[in-house]
């Protein structure tokens, strides 16, 4: 039996110990259905006259489609409808277009060429699944195979096959500017020059299939009044609904999506492919249609966690302090983008792992290849980077001779430390975690290491944004033209951003549709006038900078922070780094907060309802508890 041990001695003052549920067995509310077999999964809905839909799939990694001959398939027994790309009203989409991220790059059904093995080129709808399979085998597709590329770094070479014309450089274009996501913090090259050791290595993680026991599938059927019902095992019901509405050019009010229990997802059921396919089938036949992947399709066509390759270079002092860390990361997005560009932004925000390292640089590429498109899976964007980082920590330990746990403790981040993405670390617990692990393993720790704590770091330099070296290498198109051969962060920085400044934050993506603006006063973090008095620094102004109205959608470079005057006292900035919201400010939105609609910031101190007296918690603020007036999505603080 597994047992859970609660270390209530750790962070005891931050938590009330009324853990009513945690640590006690609880009967799941859905378990009676599971043990009696009555839980309805999508395929447990029976329909009279159900038709079965199967896809014709590409046997090539990359090929031009010359012709598709469905004439023999169409007259096979039981066949009700042959469906091709022509039948898809809007045959181009990208999953995150629903939140205005990325370009439409993926057809539901390939028409001009196929870009990965297993891509859909047509569908058959028939009375039985067997008949659909038999007819699929009779579809004749004339392919003209093209050279393909299956490796991320091969795909970046100037002569590499162009996989997806929407991304002509085989990379996602970040912020309309670079072919990779940059992260710069301090000056790694200067630090490498004075380091005692340089430790470099490469790590790689293969794609991983989520492998739920229930494969992706959906059943769609006509309802009344031109509506269609869709039973699906999607993990993202409204993604699936919105995607279906877009691909089928149909008002979402005509779609009645019913989700519910899915037989395992793990990230593999967000891609919203089976739903529009099944609804399309129901629209074209007027009958209930079931479209389900078999196990082969789930493994071959179902999007996995993408493969990743990471190169890490550390500058380390003889005592084990890591003074610089440089990353070059490659995400294999496969033939289409789906969620990978987002995963890279997540990864860049995570670097350099749970350590405080004063100089960081990273170039992270989202690369298009002829592999199966990648998607979400359990912590995607973080998992492989962490695997690489922790392997690398052990390597640093071997090179320096510093005990591996001592090395982690020495470099561990603490509350208040400034992270490379200009957010302040909080709720950190690596130190305590290492101490407990060492204790459990009987691993000796010196007295000073055993006495360390995550609380109370973040003073002095650790809380600051250092002066940062910048460069402009890797602009869109340079690499394919052969003008940017190096993928690692530049060794010849061309600019510097003064200490204390966030520089140009090119992470946030502006909202393109007016009606998608989040109104700050509607998400519950209005600031009391007498409470969140801005401090002297220009930080809040920076944070609240709205998108300039004249900005076009194509130009997705977010607002440059209202640059503090050149003569801005560095000391003032140091006292209140822009992205760090001290508790007294009640979570000033940072650059990452959705910008309020231009031109008037709705939640300016004047506009907020006046509070009679400053908010005072009636008990100590504890982990995971929402403080009234604080959005969990914004920069709340825990430790004071």
């Amino acid at each position, binding site marked *: 039996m597994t047992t859970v041990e609660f270390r209530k001695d750790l962070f005891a003052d931050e938590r009330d110990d009324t853990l009513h549920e945690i640590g006690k*067995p609880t009967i799941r509310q*859905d378990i009676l259905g599971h*043990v*009696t*077999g009555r839980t309805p999964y999508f395929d447990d809905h029976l329909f009279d006259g159900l038709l079965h839909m199967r896809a014709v799939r590409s046997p090539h990694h990359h090929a031009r489609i010359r012709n598709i001959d469905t004439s023999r398939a169409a007259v096979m027994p039981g066949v009700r409808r042959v469906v091709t790309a022509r039948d898809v009203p809007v045959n181009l989409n990208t999953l995150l277009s629903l939140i205005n991220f990325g370009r439409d790059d993926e057809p539901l059904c390939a028409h001009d060429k196929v870009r990965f093995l297993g891509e859909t080129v047509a569908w058959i709808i028939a009375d039985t699944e067997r008949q659909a399979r038999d007819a699929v085998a009779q579809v004749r597709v004339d392919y003209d195979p093209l050279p393909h590329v299956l490796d991320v770094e091969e795909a970046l070479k100037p002569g590499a096959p162009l996989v997806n014309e929407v991304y002509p450089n085989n990379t996602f274009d970040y912020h309309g500017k670079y072919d990779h996501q940059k992260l710069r913090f301090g000056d790694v090259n200067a630090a490498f020059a004075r380091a005692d050791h340089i430790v470099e290595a490469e790590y790689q993680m293969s794609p991983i299939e989520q492998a*739920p*026991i229930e494969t992706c599938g959906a059943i769609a059927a006509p309802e009344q009044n031109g509506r269609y019902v869709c039973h699906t095992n999607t993990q993202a019901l409204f993604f699936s609904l919105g995607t279906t509405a877009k691909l089928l050019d149909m008002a979402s009010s005509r779609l009645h999506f019913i989700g519910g229990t899915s037989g395992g997802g*793990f990230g593999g059921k967000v891609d919203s492919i089976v739903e529009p396919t099944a609804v399309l089938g129901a629209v074209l036949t007027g009958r209930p249609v079931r479209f389900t992947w078999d*196990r082969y399709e789930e493994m071959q066509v179902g999007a996995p966690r993408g493969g990743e390759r990471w190169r890490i270079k550390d500058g380390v002092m003889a005592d084990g302090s890591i003074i610089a860390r440089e990353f070059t990361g490659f995400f294999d997005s496969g033939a289409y983008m789906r969620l990978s560009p987002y995963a890279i932004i997540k990864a860049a925000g995570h670097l350099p792992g749970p350590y405080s390292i004063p100089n960081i640089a990273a170039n992270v590429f989202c690369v298009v290849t002829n592999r199966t498109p990648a998607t979400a899976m359990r912590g995607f964007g973080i998992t492989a980077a962490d695997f690489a980082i922790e392997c690398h920590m052990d390597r640093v330990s071997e090179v320096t001779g510093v005990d591996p746990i001592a090395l982690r403790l020495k470099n561990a981040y603490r509350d208040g430390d400034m992270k490379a993405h200009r957010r302040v670390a909080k709720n950190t617990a690596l130190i305590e975690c290492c101490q407990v692990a060492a204790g459990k393993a009987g691993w000796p720790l010196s007295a000073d290491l055993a006495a360390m704590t995550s609380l109370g770091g973040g003073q002095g330099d650790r809380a600051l944004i250092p002066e940062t070296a910048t460069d402009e290498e890797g602009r869109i198109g340079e690499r394919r033209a052969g003008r940017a051969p190096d993928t690692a962060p530049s060794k010849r920085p061309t600019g510097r951003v003064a200490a204390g400044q966030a520089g140009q934050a090119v992470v946030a993506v502006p909202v393109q549709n007016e009606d998608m603006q989040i109104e700050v006063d509607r998400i519950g973090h209005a600031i009391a006038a007498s409470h969140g008095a801005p401090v002297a620094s220009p930080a809040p102004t920076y944070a609240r900078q709205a998108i300039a109205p004249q900005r076009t959608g194509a130009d997705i470079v977010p607002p440059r922070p209202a640059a503090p005057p050149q003569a801005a006292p560095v000391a003032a900035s140091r006292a209140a780094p822009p992205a760090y919201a001290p508790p007294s400010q009640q979570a000033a939105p940072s650059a990452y907060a959705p910008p309020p609609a231009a031109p008037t910031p709705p939640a300016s101190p004047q506009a907020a309802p006046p509070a009679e007296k400053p908010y005072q918690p009636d008990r100590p603020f504890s982990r995971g508890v929402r403080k009234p007036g604080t959005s969990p999505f914004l920069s709340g603080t825990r430790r004071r």
Partner: protein
Amino acid sequence: MAKVPLTFTLNDAEIGVFVVPGSNLLDVLRRGAGDLTPKEGCAQGACGACTVLIDGVPHLSCLTLAEMAEGRRISTTGGLAVGPELHPLQTAFMEGFAAQCGFCTAGMLMSAKALLDQTPNPTRDQVIEAISGNLCRCTGYEPIVDAILTAAAKMQGRTA
């Protein structure tokens, strides 16, 4: 494609259906007989979600040609509970958190039932062996093994 008649006993009920030749038993149970408790996870014998008992012995219904079930006695999770009273295995799975998404549960229960019918006092290794053809992707197997052992103990206590 003339359908052929097929009769069998499903959880003590006589079933007669017409099936398309070459159908697998799983499809016949689900769409023909309306017992939706066995699930299709792979249709190739790898996952065990479709496990049913034929004449008391575990079989993969997805790999059983429907015609070969003629006249046989088939048990599924749909027949485990007696009225409102759950089988001890079901209770133990409930109380021991032995399911998360629930998709493998019906097959697990059938494999476990076959074990306990033959071996009322199994060792932990025997339990692991008995469910070795059933994949679970969510919970890990420990709570499932624990639940089966708990159920075995309870059933022994009841009869002893």
